[in-house]
């Protein structure tokens, strides 16, 4: 049945290949998907490979994703080896020369950024660390602005006919985004210096931006789940400097955070992490509005 539908789809596609169709974009994560939509409007057709409820380190290279990579004109990825476990398979299997790394249809957000936590030495005994730096960079909105600039250029060079459209839309986004950043930074002033506990080190950029003080991580090492012994140690350690809250992403397991929460008497704050992580985080603006609202709610 499905194959029949597939054959039909081929026929339809061949019949209806218009010249100036929207560029097909495969975005690896919801934040870059949302950004591409912001910048490209109806000139882009974005498919997002993952959701805010998935751990982007651990994604299956599903057949549906290979199929999307096959017809993509542009791949928008985080880079810095965040998607190393699955994106290479999609690019290999797709039979699509346009979207290979270094090619015209490949864009990495990390290439536009100054990453934090670049390890001076790498060894897997340190856990699942990222040799090129911490790739979870989108939770600092300044980074979104930097990526938006690069992505605008990419869209304009890929789709030259609409270059002016992308430049204009990109400039408009930068204006709105800068205004929003100012608003968020004013709202978030009470968060400066507030002590928090994180799960994985994927809130680093958020903490860095807002001046939250990261007291500890529930994962003893990146990607390594905590043992009972480590958690007990953490409780002792945190009794001296009690955190105001424990941050958890939409995709994280809540068990360890809840356990710690009961013992250090700090609430667990669930953050959307990416677009779609909470009902309020409908787009990039909503993502930061909701993140800051939730943080402020826990400080009061």
């Amino acid at each position, binding site marked *: 049945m499905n194959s029949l539908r597939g054959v039909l789809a081929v026929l339809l596609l061949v019949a209806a290949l218009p010249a100036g169709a929207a560029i097909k974009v495969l975005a690896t994560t919801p934040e870059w998907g949302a950004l591409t939509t912001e910048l490209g409007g109806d000139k882009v057709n974005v498919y997002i490979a993952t959701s805010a409820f998935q751990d982007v380190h651990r994604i299956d290279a599903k*057949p549906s994703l290979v*199929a999307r990579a096959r017809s993509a004109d542009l791949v928008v990825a985080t880079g810095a080896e965040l998607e190393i476990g699955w994106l290479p398979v999609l690019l290999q299997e797709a039979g699509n020369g346009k979207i290979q790394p270094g090619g015209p249809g490949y864009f990495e957000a990390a290439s536009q*950024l*100054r990453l934090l936590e670049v390890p001076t030495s790498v060894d*897997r005994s340190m856990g699942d660390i990222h040799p090129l730096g911490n790739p979870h960079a989108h939770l600092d909105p300044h980074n979104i602005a930097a990526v938006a600039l690069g992505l605008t250029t990419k869209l304009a060079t890929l789709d030259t006919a609409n270059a002016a459209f992308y430049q204009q839309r990109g400039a408009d986004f930068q204006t709105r985004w800068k205004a929003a950043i100012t608003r968020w930074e004013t709202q978030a002033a009470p968060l400066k210096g507030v002590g928090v506990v994180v799960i994985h080190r994927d809130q680093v950029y958020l903490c860095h931006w807002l001046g*939250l003080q990261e007291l500890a991580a529930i994962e003893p090492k990146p990607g390594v789940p905590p043992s009972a012994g480590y958690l007990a140690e953490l409780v002792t350690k945190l009794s001296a400097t009690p955190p105001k809250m424990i941050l958890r992403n939409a*995709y994280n397991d809540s068990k360890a955070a809840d356990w710690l929460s009961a013992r250090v008497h700090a609430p667990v704050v669930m953050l959307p992490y990416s677009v779609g992580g909470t009902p309020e985080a409908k787009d990039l603006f909503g993502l930061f509005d909701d993140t800051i609202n939730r943080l402020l709610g826990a400080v009061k």
Partner: protein
Amino acid sequence: MPKIRSSLAVLLLALGATPCVTYAADDAAALRAELDALKQDYANRVGALEARINQLETAQSAVAVASTPPPPLPAAESAPGSGGARGGQSAFNPAISMILAGNYASLSADPSTYRIAGFLPSGGEVGPGERSFNLGESELTVAANVDPYFFANVTASVTADNEIAVEEAYFRTLALHDGFTVKGGRFFSGLGYLNEIHAHAWDFVDQPLIYQAFFGGQLAQDGLQVKWLAPTDTFMELGAEAGNGDRFPANHRDRNGLNGTTLFAHVGGDIGDSTSWRTGLSWNDSRSDDRGYEDVDAFGVPVENAFTGTARTWVVDALMKWSPNGDSTRRQLKLQGEYMRRTEDGQLAFDTTGTNLLGDYRNRQSGWYVQGVYLFQPRWRIGARYDSLDSGDARIGLVQSGALTRAAFPTLLSASPERFTIMLDWSPSEFSRLRGQYAWDESRLDERDRQFQLQYIYSIGAHGAHKF
């Protein structure tokens, strides 16, 4: 030597791999293209400049924010626009990874007498392996892009007997468009589902019985593969392969033609956010000239027999993965099954080094397995597998003509081997796995084997990406 066909294939390949064939069109088009290229170049440069300015701004504002409270952050930051500071010859080092594996086995039956009842022996990797502690195959993979057009990968396995075998050594195109990929060299055939999967990524210590009986473990081709992916949202892939047929169920024939021809089609997709699936149909045509195997005659005297003819195999495969919201780190159910059916048609020679009798041979054999593996909490998985084979009822000309009795071919006595396996594994990280497995194996003619195995798999070096 008339190698016209193969040189034609190479020529076609080279043509296909050239990424931009410029058709000699009119000059206006060429000028326009040049102008466009210039425009793009400028747009690129302006974009790069803008990005740099913005990075500087970002860096400044980040410093401003950071200056108020002292957040406990390592100071290290990467330079934007670069992938870390590396240089010299080592910058072009390929990705190198090594898999270490080994096991402890406790087997109730003598592994040296293992043979799958009712099937012509493949000479491949069949059976549960040796008793006690065993060093498994250490797999060394070296891979990199050759240039903008090709990718190359070599996987060598170092065996416990101090031998090095080339498991895979292939090139693959990078720059082809419209869903085409061409692979050449030695590679695991794309037939079925498990055939392409390397041993370290199996869900059980050993291969399903059908793979052992029909392909001697895994079918590798020394040849060429062309794959085409349909431009649809539903995954649809068609593939064709041909090689020299050096491996079971074919054998080396010293001829120029193609052998081991394989065709396959795979379809796949998602059902909601939580379920994804893939299914396929494959066909393999393998020819053999005097493919020998050892047996005993009706009196128990060792003889050498040989098969000449064709073996055509159909494979149906299906795979489904389920995990809540697609988050496979906490819970995942993986169900898979494959069915194979092979028709062997040709001639069987009895006692090739002695009496050397020749007669017709025809047999239709089939088999299947189903397995389920469940990740019930992070890092822990449990699994079960059931294997079943039907050896068919071999039509042996020498027996039908009365020249020999059925007992002269003990290996080909009808049988229905089966096996049930359970396993539990624990993966402390993405790079290590420890596994326990217990199997009730009735794949021999008259002996039941109970197999207990403990296995370790470690992966060091470059982070490999796994197929679905």
